């Protein structure tokens, strides 16, 4: 897994690539925590290049969602492949998260 952080206007964007599982999700959590500590908003996670994600990856995103909620911030996800989208459906998370089709839409104010 590889995580790249960028700033787009007021948005803090995380581009996640590769496989997110029990081995790599702690690293993703670390990246998100720093931004959450700074009360960044909107926080955007681009999953376009995620080849695999499991429930530990989902848990990491739920944690982030709950954390932004505490300071009234926003979390948006984009780039969900059909398989990743299917996982969100199975976990009944598709309506809990703010899912955007494109990165441009997700980083917009």
């Amino acid at each position, binding site marked *: 897994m590889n995580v790249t952080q960028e700033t787009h206007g007021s948005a803090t964007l995380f581009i996640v690539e590769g*496989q997110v599982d029990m081995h790599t999700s702690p690293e993703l959590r670390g990246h998100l925590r720093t931004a959450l500590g700074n009360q960044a908003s909107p926080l955007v996670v681009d999953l376009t290049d995620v080849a*695999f994600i*499991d*429930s*530990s990856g*989902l848990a990491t995103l*739920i944690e982030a969602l709950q954390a932004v909620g505490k300071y009234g911030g926003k979390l948006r996800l984009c780039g969900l492949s059909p*398989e990743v989208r299917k996982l969100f459906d199975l976990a009944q998370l598709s309506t809990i998260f703010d899912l955007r089709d494109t990165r441009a839409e997700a980083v917009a104010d």
Partner: protein
Amino acid sequence: MMPAALDRVRCSVPSHPKYLPLVRSVVQEGANLSGFDADLTQRILLAVTEAVTNVIRHAYDGRDDQRIDLDVIAGEHELQLDLVDYGQFVDPKHIESRPLDEVRPGGIGVHLIKSTMDRVEYVKNEHGGTTLTMVKHGAAEAAAEKETT
């Protein structure tokens, strides 16, 4: 010379999460041999990842140097995965995910396994640990089954 016939793939890996990609690769090749399409395969990779993660977390309490065995039996339109641990056995009726509408991090692995695989069975094995048997039928076989029932 000993007879040494073998009809399946057997794999053992240490209970360290760094081996999860290797486990997925093995299962992916098994799914290819069974003629599964990319969608089904992806779902099976998710199920086996959740299962191995649970062994590390719950059977081995996070210890990362213990043995996990995976048997892959790639039938023509059916894939069977037997996951064996040597850790703590828990009564299968306590192996259950949280209700899905109660959103919190974690607690959905077993749900993902059961919603993906056609057969999911936890039994105590001869090592005192758990053997989890997971079976997935291919699209063709699943369709044929529906027709006859």
